[in-house]
C-alpha cells in the first residue's frame, strides 16, 4: 500500500542521512585518499627527479674527471717539454761558455808565447851582438858593426823558425 507521506518523508530523511554520512564519513575518507594519492605522487616524482639528478651528477663528475686527467697529462707533457728545452739551453750555454773560455785561454797563451818569444829574441839579439862585439872588438870598426847587427836581424827570423 503506497503512502504518500512515508514516500516523501523517506526521501527527505534519506537526504539528511546522506548529508550526515557525506559530511562526517565520506569527506574524511576521501580527503585521506586524496592526501595519500598526492603523497605517493610527490614521492614518485621526487624519486624520479632525484634519480635524474644523480645521473646528471655522475655524468658531470665523469666529465670533470676526464678533463682533469687530460689537463694533468697536458701539464706534465708541457713541463717535460719545457724541462727538455731548458736542459738543452743550459747545456748549449755551458758549451758556448766552455768554448769561449777555451778560446780565451788559447789566445792568452798565444799572446804570452809571442810576447815571450819577442822578449827572448830581443835578448838573443842583444846577446849575439854583445858576444860578437866582444869577439870582434879588435877587428871591426863602427861600420862593420852596423852591418853585422843588420845581418843578424835579417837571419833571426830563420833561426826562430
Amino acid at each position: 500500500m503506497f503512502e504518500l507521506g512515508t514516500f516523501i518523508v523517506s526521501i527527505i530523511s534519506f537526504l539528511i542521512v546522506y548529508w550526515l554520512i557525506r559530511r562526517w564519513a565520506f569527506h574524511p575518507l576521501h580527503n585521506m585518499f586524496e592526501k595519500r594519492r598526492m603523497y605517493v605522487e610527490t614521492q614518485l616524482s621526487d624519486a624520479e627527479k632525484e634519480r635524474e639528478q644523480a645521473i646528471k651528477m655522475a655524468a658531470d663528475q665523469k666529465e670533470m674527471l676526464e678533463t682533469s686527467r687530460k689537463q694533468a697529462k697536458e701539464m706534465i707533457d708541457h713541463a717535460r717539454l719545457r724541462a727538455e728545452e731548458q736542459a738543452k739551453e743550459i747545456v748549449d750555454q755551458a758549451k758556448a761558455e766552455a768554448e769561449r773560455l777555451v778560446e780565451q785561454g788559447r789566445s792568452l797563451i798565444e799572446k804570452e808565447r809571442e810576447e815571450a818569444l819577442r822578449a827572448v829574441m830581443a835578448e838573443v839579439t842583444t846577446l849575439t851582438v854583445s858576444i860578437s862585439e866582444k869577439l870582434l872588438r879588435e877587428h871591426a870598426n863602427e861600420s862593420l858593426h852596423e852591418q853585422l847587427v843588420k845581418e843578424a836581424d835579417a837571419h833571426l827570423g830563420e833561426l826562430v823558425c
Partner: protein
Amino acid sequence: MIAFPYLFPDSIFKINIVTIAMIFVAGLIALIFLRLATRKLDMRHPKGWQNIMEWGMEFTRTMVGDIVPSERFIQFIMPLAFTVLIFLFVANWMGLVATISIHLNTPIPWLGITASDLQSANGDVALFDSPTANLSMALGLAVMVWLISHYQGLHRPKAYFKNYRNPLHILEEITNPLTHGMRLYGNIFAGEVLIASILSMPMLFHFIPTGLPLLVGWLLYGAFVSSLQAYIFAVLMVLYIGMKSYHMGGGH
C-alpha cells in the same frame, strides 16, 4: 500482517513512523561504523576498520568506474554511491538481525492503530524493522534516483530529448524507477515475511523447534540477498544516473 504506527493516519499524508525512524537508525549505525573507521585516519598505516572502509571506497570506485569510466562522473557520484551502498547494506540487514514488536491489546487511534489492524496483526505492533521492507520508502529512494538522473540529463537538453525519439524509452522512464524500488522492497519484505512465518511454525511436541534448520538456512540466504540487493540498487542507481550524465562523459 504486522501493524505499524502512523503519523496523520487519516489524511492522505500518512507517515510510517517506524520506517522513518529506521532510516535514521540505519544511517546512525552506518555513521557510527564509519566514524570508527575515520576516527584515527592514518594515511600510511591503515588498520582495523579503516581497512574495511577503504576497501568499501575502492569497491564503490571500481563499481562506478566499470559502469561509467569518466573521472568527472566518478567524482560526482562517489559520495552518493558510497552512502547508498553502506546505508542499504545496514538497512537490509536490520530486519535479519532483529525485528522487534510489542503486543498491544488496546488500539491507539491517533497513531493509526485501529482495532481491526490489531486484530489482523494479532496485536503485534512493529518497533524495529528494515526501512527497506516498506514499499513507499523503497519507491522513494528509486524516485529520488530518477529525479537526479533527469536533473543530470537536462544539462544537455539536445542529447536528453533525442533519447526519446524512441517511444520505448518513455516507457522505460516509468518502469525503471518502479522496478528499481519494487525489487528492493520485494526482496527485503519477502525475506522478513518468511522469517516471521518460519518463527511461527508450531514446535514438535512443544519443545522441538522444527523450523530451526529452515530458519538458519533462510537467514544465511537472507544475508546474501540483503547484501546483493544493496549492491544491485547501487549499481542500477549509478547506471540510471550515468546514462543521462551526458555532460560528464556518460550516456552510452
